[in-house]
């Protein structure tokens, strides 16, 4: 019936970072993990996709990227970038402007690629300490995140306050999504009951 999803929060954070008036130079790259698309989401293509977004936000493609492109093109059929090359480029390109990498739903991403991505992010932070990495996922992934980010990770649990849940429900009810005619009393009852139920989850 109602859906309040963790990626709504990721997308909110991403839009906020993009639209910050004080942060016109912010470069924001995102990735939404999806367990159904695991096959096409190798660690290399995930990091490559982040690099691609960083590069495309720049007016001109940096020389180190075009040089690598030419170098790899010489191989028959072309050759993909190596993970270590992507890490190095992301690190060096992120040092020149505020850069945010946002990865949503880590738990939707299976091992061993998840560890590879986390280790790569750690290496990127080492090269560019000003980079900011935003991650979401089910709580059990937390230990792994902590393990890989030795310099520490800021933790912020997503547990929406009841106000949020009520506002969400009211908006959805007003839109009439999926419910058809709704008796006002019943609406009040739902708004009252649902936060009580959700806090027990």
């Amino acid at each position, binding site marked *: *019936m109602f*859906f309040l*999803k*963790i*990626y*709504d*929060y990721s*997308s*909110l*954070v991403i*839009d906020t*970072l*993009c639209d910050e008036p004080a942060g016109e130079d912010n470069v*924001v790259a*995102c990735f*939404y993990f999806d367990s159904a698309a695991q096959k096409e989401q190798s660690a290399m*293509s*995930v990091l*490559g*996709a982040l690099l*691609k*977004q960083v*590069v*495309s*936000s720049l*007016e001109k*493609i940096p020389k180190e990227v*075009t040089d690598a*492109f030419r170098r*790899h093109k010489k191989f028959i059929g072309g050759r993909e*970038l190596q993970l270590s090359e992507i890490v190095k480029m992301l690190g060096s390109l992120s040092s020149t402007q505020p850069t*945010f990498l946002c990865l*949503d*739903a880590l738990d939707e991403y299976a091992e061993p690629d998840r560890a590879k991505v986390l280790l790569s992010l750690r290496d990127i*932070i080492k090269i560019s*300490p000003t980079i*900011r*990495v935003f*991650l*979401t996922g*089910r709580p059990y*992934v*937390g230990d792994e*995140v902590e393990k890989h*980010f030795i310099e*520490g*990770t*800021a*933790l*912020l*649990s*997503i547990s*929406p*306050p009841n*106000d*949020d849940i009520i*506002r*969400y429900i009211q908006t959805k009810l007003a839109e009439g999504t999926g419910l058809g005619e709704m008796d006002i009393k019943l609406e009040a009852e739902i708004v009252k009951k649902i936060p009580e*139920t*959700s806090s027990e989850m």
Partner: protein
Amino acid sequence: MILPYSTNSFNMYNSHDSAATDNRSEVLTWLSPLEPHLRHNEVPTTRVKDVGDWLLRTEEFRSWKNGDGQGESQKATMFCPGNLGVGKTYIR
């Protein structure tokens, strides 16, 4: 705060001359065939105005974003654990 629900926040392909554009898109595709910004543009349709703003107002989020935390609180990474579903119902 006004939230953009369907604006394209990623100004991806704004090259000027066509030769450079060809090369540019070739290089970008080579970097990765994936297009995660497309997913981003689809996602906001399920969002509701003002929901989630509490997160943006927290001290943790602000100091992570601005990188102005003191000593121990200066952290490059923020992890938000949550049990809200991705494709799963949160409110049943």
